[in-house]
């Protein structure tokens, strides 16, 4: 995978380490939350799916009924197709959309909205007015079913998209963001360890050198002390004490 081994470009400091750890925690929480959201949406989706299936079959039956009533009208009145088409001016049968919130997703729902309009005066229809009215009712019922179906279908499409998007985010966090952060943390820890080791090594070297220096100085002092002892003892003692005060250890700060 191309993301393996990728890490962020940061300076390896302890602060960066804490920050990255916090971000990793955040990413993990986010991941579990999104996974839960996706699962909830999927359950809702399947429920709607079943309803859509049912509604479609119901619609099939309802439309059959409507067609029959239409056939009756044609039988009684003759062909009214042209008449009806000419009379269409303002739609009396409309839909209103309202929003519903379904587990965080805003879904539209359609409602049948009958507005007062230029309803048919049924001018020109000499016979079978009753059949026509009945057909009108049947078709109105059919359209109500259709409107319900349409609501379900739109909800279905929108949910589908949202589930896809959420799924993409979950996968992105799981496969890219979290491994990156983990690699960054590993890198920082290894760098810090390396720095500690270097520090330790440097300390040991300096200590070693200091020991050698003190040993050399002691040897030199011992030699001088011997030579100084032959003229006078007092002087030698003074010299030695002076030496103690004059020889300054770099570690002693005061």
């Amino acid at each position: 995978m191309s993301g393996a081994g990728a890490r962020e470009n940061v300076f390896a400091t302890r602060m960066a380490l804490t920050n990255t750890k916090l971000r990793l925690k955040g990413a993990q929480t986010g991941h579990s939350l999104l996974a839960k959201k996706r699962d909830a949406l999927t359950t809702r989706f399947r429920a709607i799916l079943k309803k859509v299936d049912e509604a479609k079959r119901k619609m099939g039956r309802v439309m059959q009924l409507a067609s029959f009533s239409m056939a009756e009208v044609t039988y009684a009145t003759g062909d009214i197709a042209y008449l009806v088409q000419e009379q269409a001016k303002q739609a009396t049968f409309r839909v209103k959309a309202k929003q519903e919130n379904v587990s965080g997703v805003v879904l539209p729902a359609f409602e049948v909205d009958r507005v007062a309009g230029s309803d048919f005066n049924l001018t020109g229809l000499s016979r079978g007015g009753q059949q026509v009215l009945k057909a009108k009712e049947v078709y109105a019922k059919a359209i109500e079913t259709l409107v319900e179906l349409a609501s379900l279908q739109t909800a279905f499409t929108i949910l589908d998209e949202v589930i896809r998007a959420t799924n993409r985010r979950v996968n992105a966090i799981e496969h890219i963001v979290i491994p990156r952060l983990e690699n960054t943390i590993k890198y920082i820890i290894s760098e810090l360890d390396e720095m500690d080791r270097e520090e330790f090594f440097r300390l040991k070297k300096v200590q070693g050198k200091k020991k050698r220096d003190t040993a050399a100085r002691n040897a030199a002092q011992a030699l001088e002390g011997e030579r100084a002892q032959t003229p006078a003892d007092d002087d030698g003692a003074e010299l030695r004490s002076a030496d103690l005060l004059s020889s300054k250890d770099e570690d002693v700060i005061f």
Partner: protein
Amino acid sequence: MATSFKDRNLIAVIGDEDSITGLLLAGVGHINEHQKKNFLVVEEGKTQVSEIESAFEEFTQRKDVAILLINQHIAEKIRPTVDKYQQAFPALLEIPSKDHPYDPSKDSVLKRVQKLFGD
């Protein structure tokens, strides 16, 4: 997309004469200020596929159409266009006609559903 469906309130229809007559009888027909109807009568053998396609495009582009009803056998004629249709608005609904009862296996939305259930 949030505001666009507040103004949508019409039901558009592409269908054969019987279906159109019935739906118009219920009051679905509308003619707007440009003399544009919200329905298209498709006559067997007379209406061209291109005409059906352009009507489909027009109805789906219109901002005041909430639902588009289309007879299933007519949808078959423009099946590729219908299958490509992914918008949430207007809602596309395939309805049966007098001569062609409803066939779930041909419905574009149900086909998508089958695909989803596959994974």
